[in-house]
């Protein structure tokens, strides 16, 4: 599958888990780009740009965010809260956020969905299942799923029709 023009932003503080992720997609010949944010603050800089180059659209060049809930500085739920608040303020085209985390707590699952995560996946415990799950996630979200087309920024009526 050629998805070489697509970019995943992987929010992952553990370099070993990043390496496992890269091996998993390489094994399935998935050739998308992978950017890595090591903590919540770095992730926010990727999505919103730095202070001197604010982005009009958060994460415009990112096609999928894989979000670990347990991260230093800003945790995953805090990042989701910021993204959620940015939504509806001209930021409708933010990338889909898939929570990919070791937490299986019901509270985390429901909070994540309330804050706009499109999917919640618990990291499998064994290596074999981890590899399968990563491959399925990436193939579905970057290869199969189609995102909503971009709306024009002007004319609030465009956005309000969806509610």
């Amino acid at each position, binding site marked *: 599958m050629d998805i070489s023009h697509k970019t995943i932003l992987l929010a992952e503080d553990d370099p070993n888990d990043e390496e496992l992720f890269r091996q998993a997609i390489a094994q399935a010949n998935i050739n998308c780009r992978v950017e890595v944010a090591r903590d919540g603050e770095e992730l926010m800089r990727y999505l919103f740009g730095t202070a001197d180059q604010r982005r009009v659209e958060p994460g415009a060049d990112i096609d999928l965010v894989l979000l670990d809930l347990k991260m230093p500085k800003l945790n995953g739920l805090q990042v989701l809260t910021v993204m959620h608040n940015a939504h509806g303020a001209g930021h409708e085209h933010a990338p889909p956020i898939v929570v990919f985390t070791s937490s299986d707590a019901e509270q985390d699952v429901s909070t994540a969905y309330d804050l706009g995560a499109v999917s919640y996946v618990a990291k499998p415990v*064994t*290596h074999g299942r981890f590899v399968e799950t990563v491959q399925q996630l990436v193939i579905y979200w970057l290869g199969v799923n189609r995102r909503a087309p971009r709306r024009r920024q002007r004319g609030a009526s465009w956005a309000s029709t969806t509610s």
Partner: protein
Amino acid sequence: MRNRAIGRPAEILLIEDNLGDARLTREALADGRIPHRLSMLFDGQEASEFLHRQGVFARAPRPDLILLDLSLPKMDGRELLAVIRANPDLAAIPVIVLTASEAHEDYLRAESLSVDAYLTKPVAADRLLAVVRQMKRDWLEHLLQPVGG
């Protein structure tokens, strides 16, 4: 001279498919102050290829120590152990079997597997060091010099 490793780092091979356990073992090794290089594999088949330097593992290092979980996909740990012991080039490598509990360890001891030691998971740095010291292999003599203060 502080913080200077003596000799080369130990080559350690960890074969474990539970990612959480693998992480804890890796951290115990890091805490244990044994200068080492760690290779991690997740199933018995790959481990066998690594040890025999086949395919992508053509330039794999020969491990000084193997940490082995017995329940592995593709090739079971017991089968891998038999492969290791049957090969004259590999037979002398010390193998520590990682077990899920002390009860599991007792159960395994009854099988009289040809292993050097057992370690209950999660692996703790001090237990790992104690077990490695007990084995008193030649390669350990210089590797177990303390690093730094």
